[in-house]
Structures are given as C-alpha cells and as structure tokens.
C-alpha cells in the first residue's frame, strides 16, 4: 500500500507584525492554497487546524475557528497542538485520514498573531508546571537553551560566534527573494556580532523573532490527485516521534534531564531520531535530499540540525556552512526560504510553511531562490521537549 499523499495546493499569509486577528491570516492562506489546488472550500472534506495558545479560546479550537470563518460546510474537523511542531501534527492528522480512506481531500491551516519579546508562561501559581517553574525559580527563558547549545558547539567542536553569524548572513540572503518573508534585507557578519548579546554567545540577530503569519496546504489521496492534476508533489513521510528514555540532553522548558543511572542511553538521541524516522518511512536517506528546511530558532541550532538530519558528521557543520554547501547553489541548500531568521516564528504555522517551501521548490516555482533540479526535500523541527516533526516531500 502506498503511503504517499499529494500536495495539491500551498498558500501563505506573509509574515510580519500586522496587528490583526490570526483568523484572517489563516483564511487568506487557506484561500490561496485552495486557489493553488483549483478547488473550492466546499470540496474540502476535513479541515485540520494547528492551534495557537496565545489568542484565547478561538486559538484552542483552531480547526473549527477557520471552518467557521470560511463558512460552515459540514466538513470534518480536527485541532492539534504540539508547540513548534503543531503544524506537523495537523499535517499528520490530515494525512492519516487520507491514507485510512476516511477522506479524499483535506485542508491544513496554521496561523498566529504573536506577542512581542520573550514568550512567557501562562499566569497563576503553578509549581507543577515545568514551564512556570523554570521562569520562577531560575529566570530561564527560551534563549537560555539556545545559548547552552551554542556554547556547547563552541566547547566541543570549536565553533565560533562568526560561524553562528554566517548562518544568519546566509539565511538573510536567501530570504531577500521570498515574498512571504518578514525580513527581506541582507545582513553582514558585523551586524550580527555588533548586535546586543542576549544569551551568551548568542546575539539579538542570532535569535529568531516572533511574528504574525499563516500557512496552509491542500492534501489529497493519490487517486483524487490524478483526477485533478499531473505529477503533484508528494508527502512521502511524516515523523512525529517522541524521545526514547532516557533523554539526557536538556530540553525546553525543563530544569533537568532524565537520569541515565538506571537505564542505558538509547542508540540515537532524540533530535537525531526525528528525521531518521522520516527517512525510514520514505525509504530515502539524507544523500537523496536536494534541500532541507530546518528550525533555526537560533543560528547555532541550524548547525546542530545539519548533523542531526545526517547532512554531515557530528562536528562538521561549520565546515559544511563555510564551504557553501548549504547556500543556494551548493550541494544541499538549507533554508532556501530564508528560515526563521527571515520569517520570525509564527508557532502553529511554521511547520506547515516549511512544507509550502518544499512544495514550491519541487515544482520549480521558488522564484529568485530556486534550488535547481530539486527532487526531494526534508523539513525538521521539534515541539518543546517531546514532539518530533519531520516531513519528506518528493516529486
């Protein structure tokens, strides 16, 4: 049995700070995806929403919120949350319905209107919640974790702040050509190194902003796709793995790791297992990938992902970057969209936006930032401590 589903349409609302409701962004992205697919909203049998937790009740039931805004049609609905992996959860729900034969065509939507500055936990006195606890007893924010990983690269692999800055320079250069990016301006190494240190060794320009934005996909069965189009981009795998005990790498929002005193370490670490799960499912490997969209919450994290998705051996990411292999025109361009560095994070939309970019790249429609001859691509991301998220698209 084939495990493939077709991507019939992709659409986005440009990222930025627009000061409007997330619902409108989502509807715009959905309408663009439907138009791209040549379908009407009434043709959709399932709407899969990615939830946002920062926009009140409508955000918690995003699937129904978007369905209501598009006009009640009686379609099936789902609403998913998985922090940064929310979009992959929504894609996974839609894909599972299609592969199980429960529907032929589904619309996946994620949208956010983000607050300024640090993400803060929900209010009240909640010492049982690790997200609340880390802020209260130690003042630990999200950039703390990015800083710890970055310093670790410096100590273990000899990375430098210039290497980190070079990731931003590359992604900013890619993003210049993306009409949906929030920042469309080239950045120099000195700009990054001259910006304020937020979480040593990371500067303000090493860390992604938070944005408003929306992304949507129309997915269908291969049979349905054949009746509507020729040669659609296909989703060959969706990995939503959890870690294997014990995960001894510190993860947001925890104050501590699992213990390795009673059980030995798993064969591969959590972050390595995310894309690995997708490769296994697709029957492909990193060497088959023409490009990758990885979650660059910080510049240094992008380097970690190179190794964790198998583009190079541990410790070789800086060399891969310096050699230009991950720049458009190189062996395996990473974040040709411009990545989070050019977008800023719109949490529930981001994993969907990654797949929109793969779709346009594989169709040859990524004007100004096209990876020539792209045949397959991988996305990767992680939702807080336990939601793996990786999607492989092929022609």
């Amino acid at each position, binding site marked *: 049995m084939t495990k493939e589903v077709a991507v019939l349409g992709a659409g986005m609302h440009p990222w930025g700070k627009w000061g409007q409701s997330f619902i409108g962004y989502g509807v715009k992205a959905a309408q663009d995806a439907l138009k791209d697919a040549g379908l009407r909203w009434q043709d959709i049998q399932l709407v899969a929403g990615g939830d946002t937790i920062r926009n009140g009740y409508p955000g918690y039931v995003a699937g129904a919120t978007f369905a209501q805004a598009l006009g009640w049609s009686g379609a099936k609905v789902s609403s998913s949350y998985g922090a940064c992996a929310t979009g992959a959860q929504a894609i996974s729900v839609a894909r599972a319905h299609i592969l199980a034969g429960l529907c032929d065509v589904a619309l996946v939507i994620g949208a956010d209107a983000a607050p300024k500055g640090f993400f803060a936990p929900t209010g009240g006195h909640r010492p049982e919640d690790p997200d609340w606890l880390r802020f209260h007893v130690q*003042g630990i924010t999200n950039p703390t974790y990015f800083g710890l990983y970055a310093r*670790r690269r410096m100590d273990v692999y000899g990375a430098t702040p210039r290497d980190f800055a070079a990731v931003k320079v590359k992604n900013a250069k890619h993003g210049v050509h993306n009409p949906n990016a929030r920042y469309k301006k080239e950045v120099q190494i000195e700009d990054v190194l001259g910006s304020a240190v937020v979480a040593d060794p990371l500067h303000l320009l090493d860390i992604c902003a938070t944005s408003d934005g929306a992304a949507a996909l129309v997915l269908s069965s291969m049979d349905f796709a054949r009746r509507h189009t020729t040669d659609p981009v296909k989703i060959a795998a969706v990995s939503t793995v959890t870690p294997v005990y*014990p995960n001894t790498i510190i993860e947001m929002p925890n104050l501590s790791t699992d213990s390795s005193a009673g059980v030995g370490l798993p064969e591969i670490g959590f972050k390595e297992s995310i894309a690995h799960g997708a490769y296994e499912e697709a029957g492909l490997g990193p060497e088959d990938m023409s490009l990758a969209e990885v979650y660059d919450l910080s510049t240094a994290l992008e380097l970690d992902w190179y190794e964790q998705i198998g583009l190079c051996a541990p410790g070789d990411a800086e060399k891969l970057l310096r050699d230009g292999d991950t720049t458009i025109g190189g062996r395996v361009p990473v974040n040709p969209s411009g990545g989070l560095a050019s977008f800023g994070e719109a949490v529930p939309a981001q994993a969907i936006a990654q797949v929109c970019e793969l779709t346009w790249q594989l169709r040859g429609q990524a004007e100004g930032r096209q990876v020539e001859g792209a045949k397959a691509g991988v996305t990767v991301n992680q939702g807080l401590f336990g939601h793996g998220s990786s999607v492989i698209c092929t022609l």
Partner: protein
Amino acid sequence: MDPREPRLLGTQCRACGTYFFPAERTFCRNPACDEADLREVELSRTGKLWSYTSANYKPPAPFVAKEPFEPFAIAAVELEEEGITILGQVADGLGVEALEAGMPMELVLRELYQDDEHIYMTWNWKPMDGGGA
C-alpha cells in the same frame, strides 16, 4: 542538612535505581520498569559543567527580578552518579567569563524572595574552590 552544604531533594526508584528531579512521586518513568515505590533522596551537591550561557535581559514574570535588573549567568551541571543535568543560575554574580565547560561546580543557596511569613530559597551553581577559570 548542613545549610553550608545544601542538597537538592529528588527521588529514586527502588527497583531500577533511576533518579528524578524535580521529585517524581507517583511512578517510575523508566519504560521497562513498573515500580511505584520511589524514595526521597539527597542528590549529589557537586557536578561537572556541561554548558553555560547568560540572561542579559530581564526574564518575564513569574520570574522575581531584583530592581534594577542585573544580568546573570546560567549553568547546566551534570551529576555523575545520578546521570542527570540540572540548570541553575550561577552564584555571586559571576559572569560567563568565569566559566569553562568541564569545570567542577557545587550547589549553594540563594534567597529568591520573601514575604511577611517566609523567606523563599532557590539553588545556584558555583565554581568550586571559590574561584573560576
């Protein structure tokens, strides 16, 4: 417990020996173990610095910030026996320039805040031998 040598309280599974911090009291999280008997234990108060960073801007509530805000360093320290890494602020206002991966660190106490009835304490990590690199 000697206040000059404070220790964090965690729990340990009686069956498989896995440690938990913050304390897990209901069931062992080792997937191969179905033990529910977890005993409270004092964790090692020294460990090895895994990595470190800084907070140069004031974190949002519920962080209790001193006014004016003073940037601080944060350490991730590996406890060898427990096989756990624990985060904490670095003591005495020491900055990242005083730190180096692998250096030995010890646990000390710091006042978090006080109200009319209580003084609330939290833990910090401090380079051993009172110094730094």
